[in-house]
Structure formats: structure tokens, C-alpha cells
């Protein structure tokens, strides 16, 4: 994992295979970094779960387990802020095409809750095309001021 220093910001970048084991790795990396920012155990758990769900989407829906496609994980930490970018090399998708998991008719659907959890647990969430192809999800969490 590369660790270029940039002033007060530390950035970690890694590339992961499109396998389920990468989901655990991404979660472990981000929990470790969240701890360094100062997030408490519950917040680390929530951030870890958000990144887990993003990485599942990248492996399963984006890259479709392709051996030739990678998941790109960037973690930036600065004073009181953690930013995570999860990128895939898939065909992209339209957020608006996803059914609302909280609509009464969708409550018993087996899937479709990942983005709801991500949005709930993180302060910022946005999704855009990744330069070079694929989709990039950007997550931000701010440390609460005590």
C-alpha cells in the first residue's frame, strides 16, 4: 500500500482483487485508519460497514468477480476527517434506478439495503464515473466536535 505524505493529510492507496476476501481487507484497512483519526468504536464499526457495502458493490455488481478487474481503495485522513474512495472497473449504474428499500412494497426484498446503510453511516456520499472507466464512490465522515 502506498503512503504518500501530503502536508497534514495522509493518503493510502491500494488495489484489490475482485474477490470476497477483498471486502474484509478493505474494512480492516478503513477501521484502522478511522481509529487514527479518533473515531470511537461504534463510529469505526459504522465506517467499516459503509466501506464493506461499497466494496461488495464494487466486487459483485461492478466488477462481477472478474479476475482482470480491480477494486481501487483510497483512504485519506486529515484532522478530524476521513475520506474513502472505492472505485471499480465495471459498466456503471444509475442510482435512480434502484428501488427504495424503505417503501412498504420493498421491505421484504432480499437485497438493496447497502446504499441505505452507507448513507446512514457516513456524512457525505457521492457517486460518479471513475476516470478510465467504472464507478467511484466517495464517502466522508467528520469527527464530531466535543
Amino acid at each position, binding site marked *: 500500500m502506498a503512503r504518500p505524505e501530503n502536508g497534514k493529510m495522509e493518503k493510502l492507496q491500494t488495489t484489490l482483487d475482485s474477490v470476497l476476501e477483498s*471486502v474484509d481487507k478493505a474494512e480492516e484497512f478503513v477501521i484502522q485508519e478511522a481509529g487514527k483519526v479518533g473515531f470511537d468504536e461504534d463510529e469505526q*464499526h459504522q465506517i467499516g460497514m459503509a466501506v464493506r457495502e461499497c466494496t461488495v458493490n464494487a466486487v459483485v455488481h461492478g466488477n462481477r468477480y472478474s479476475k482482470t478487474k480491480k477494486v481501487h481503495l483510497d483512504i485519506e485522513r486529515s484532522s478530524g476527517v476521513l475520506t474513502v474512495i472505492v472505485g471499480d472497473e465495471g459498466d456503471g449504474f444509475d442510482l435512480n434506478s434502484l428501488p427504495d*428499500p*424503505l417503501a412498504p412494497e420493498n*421491505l*421484504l*426484498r*432480499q437485497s438493496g439495503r447497502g446504499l*441505505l446503510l452507507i448513507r446512514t453511516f457516513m456524512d457525505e456520499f457521492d457517486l460518479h464515473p471513475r476516470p478510465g472507466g467504472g464507478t467511484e464512490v466517495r464517502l466522508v465522515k467528520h469527527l464530531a466536535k466535543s
Partner: protein
Amino acid sequence: MSAKLTSRQVGDVTVIDAAGRITLGDGASSFRDTIRDLAAKGNKKLLLNLADVSYIDSSGIGEMVSGFTTVTNNGGQLKLLGLSKRVKDLLQITKLYTVFEVFDDETSAIRSFH
């Protein structure tokens, strides 16, 4: 640790004791297989004890919902026992608290089936 599931009978109620992580992959698969197997064998009163479950992700939640649907469609009931605060929070966020009957103690849960 991935999910470990064992079942036991308390009268006519089948209690499924789950432990470990119910996440995408082996954990969620074994969870799904256990519920479907018990439902297929005609068990209609199922109590899922999650007290020793350390982690559930959206796939695990999906398997719980799928299990609920399978059991309900077979004319049975699937109820939940011993949720940690984190699992309770997930059920609140996903509005599944409105779907599942949830209990904190086993005696009350068993009694609720009768």
C-alpha cells in the same frame, strides 16, 4: 469467524442459536441453508437467537428477510431473540422492526408462539 448455527427444540419451538458473522459469503449461505432446511422439514415455529452474532451486513439482513418469507409462506413464524444494539439499530434503519417480532428473553419468546 463465520456464522455457526445450531438448532434445538424447546417444546414445539425450534430455536436456532447463531454465532459469529453473518455476512456475504459463507456466513450468509450457511444461514440461508439452515433456515430453508428447517422450514422444509416442516418446522413452523422458529426462533432465531442472535445473541452471539457479532456482525451482520446487508447480505445477512437479506438472508434474515428471505428466511422470514420462506417460513411465513410455509404457514410458519420466524421470530428474533437477543439482538445486540448494533443489530437493533440495523433493523431500525431498514424499518424491519415493523416486520419481525423481536424478544429480549427466551421464555417470553417461546410463550409468544402459543
